[in-house]
């Protein structure tokens, strides 16, 4: 950071000390692929754009990844914002059939209001803009303020809050359940509907519907280290796991001793299944989402166990989703999501899409 020319400024000494501290911290403690930690998000976003020339565009001013072709007036624009650190959510699921744009904030921080506002303006469409937001205080505020201002500028906007996490219960006080990995299903369904020409009202209906039948619960085996922090967000004992972890490393319901995979799947299903509830005869999509540091081999192991335990309850898995969908940097852990599906949802979830994350 360069300090601009002559200006009235206070305790410079203290700030220089801090910068020094930051550098030392990086060198000593952080095992990450990163240059200046402050540029972690921009450099990642640049990489995404370079990896997808012709299909994705990066607008550095607003941390914005959008389809290269821009918004279309005959299609609702679907936008999701949130903190960074959850990749592939949401910047890597921009593309035909899913998002039109994603405007992330810094790691684990809701995007500043201006990013959301400018993104909404850049994605303006005659058919309207649908903003998908994970239900957190900061995100909610930024999106509400931005959509008010966007509407004042003549843009039709609807905002949809995703809140699939059963770890946090509604209460008089809190803002309510959090949005976590289940948001993938909302984005996929709404994206498919918008691509097929649905209007704003219809897109919102579909989003609400999918959100209403989606439930998630996660478990962390380790903490994670935000690049600009340089230290783990929390400490877990060698034999401890965090049940109901939030995707920003927020503590969950409780800490317990590590147990075998069967017991862990039981814990996850016991939280998720009775919540909707999912009942015998239901058809579901089953997602085992990796939190960033858990290998896909372990995720498939969990999948197999969950699939069979659901079958034993008479709940049949219609389709599997195993991999990383919504992560917490390099946190080891996993979440389990169920979506109760019907023909409409099935069709939307399997509709084609062309996004940054792909295998070949």
């Amino acid at each position: 950071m360069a300090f601009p020319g002559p200006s009235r400024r206070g305790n410079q000494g203290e700030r220089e000390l801090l910068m020094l501290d930051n550098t030392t911290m990086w060198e000593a403690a952080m095992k990450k692929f990163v240059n200046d930690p402050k540029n972690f998000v921009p450099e990642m976003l640049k990489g995404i754009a370079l990896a997808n020339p012709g299909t994705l565009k990066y607008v550095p001013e607003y941390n914005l990844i959008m389809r290269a072709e821009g918004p279309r007036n005959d299609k609702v624009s679907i936008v999701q914002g949130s903190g960074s650190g959850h990749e592939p959510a949401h910047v890597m699921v921009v593309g035909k059939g899913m998002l039109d744009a994603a405007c992330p904030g810094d790691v684990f921080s809701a995007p500043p209001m201006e990013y959301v506002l400018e993104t909404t303006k850049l994605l303006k469409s005659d058919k309207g803009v649908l903003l998908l937001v994970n239900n957190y205080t900061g995100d909610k505020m930024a999106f509400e303020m931005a959509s008010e201002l966007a509407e004042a500028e003549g843009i039709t906007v609807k905002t949809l809050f995703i809140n699939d996490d059963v770890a946090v219960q509604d209460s008089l006080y809190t803002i309510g359940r959090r949005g976590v990995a289940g948001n993938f299903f909302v984005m996929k369904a709404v994206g498919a509907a918008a691509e097929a020409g649905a209007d704003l009202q219809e897109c919102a209906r579909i989003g609400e519907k999918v959100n209403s039948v989606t439930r998630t619960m996660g478990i962390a085996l380790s903490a994670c280290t935000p690049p600009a922090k340089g230290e783990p967000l929390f400490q877990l004992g060698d034999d401890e796991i965090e049940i109901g972890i939030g995707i920003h490393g927020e503590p969950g319901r409780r800490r317990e001793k590590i147990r075998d995979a069967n017991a862990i799947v039981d814990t996850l299903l016991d939280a998720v299944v009775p919540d909707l509830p999912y009942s015998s005869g239901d058809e579901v999509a089953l997602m085992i989402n990796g939190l960033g540091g858990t290998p896909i081999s372990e995720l498939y192991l969990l999948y197999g166990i969950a699939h069979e335990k659901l079958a034993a309850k008479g709940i049949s898995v219609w389709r599997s989703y195993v991999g990383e969908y919504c992560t917490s940097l390099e946190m080891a852990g996993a979440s389990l999501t169920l979506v109760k599906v019907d023909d409409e949802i099935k069709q939307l979830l399997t509709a084609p899409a062309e996004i940054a994350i792909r295998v070949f």
Partner: protein
Amino acid sequence: MTSSFDRVESVVRTITDTCIANEKYFGDLDSVVGDGDFGFSLARGFERVDEGWDTFDRTDVGTFLSKIAIVITSRVGGTSGPIWGTAFLRAGGTVKGKVDLTGEDVVAMLRAAIEGIKARGGASLGEKTLLDALVPMTDTIEERLAAGDAAADVVKAAAVAARTAADATKELEAKRGRAAYTGERSIGSVDPGAIAVAVLAEKVAETW
């Protein structure tokens, strides 16, 4: 007590520098039951304030503060952007057109900031947010001004009140923001926002 524009500038300057300098400390506080970004968010936003420092319209205190508010609201991520931005905006709104401020102006600014924060985030006193430092601090300022104390003493008393109240958030259960998810587990750690208010008040007192 009257306060010149210079004084306002110097206080905002102190806030700016202190938020930048305490990036790590504020972040560490937020990782206890939060997500650790509080320090980073404030620091990146106040760096913007620092960068634009010489360019802000200084016609009057109200205009000046609203310019600062726009930078904060626009560029600070997380909950803090809307909360702190709203606070500066509402504070500025009470002193539109003024260049010199009375003690009553200062209290009005702080009360407006508090109301703005409550409106934006829906929090009340005792829910373990920065309000739990800001409100007792404002009460103290009002009392001391009424008692006719000198400005420097008022500022010192404000810092003590903010610190005492901020430290006392340790006993509270969080009902708002990310910490609220942890319910009872939030008891035992201080609220980062409240501590930030205390640190800022102390720095303001120090540099008065």
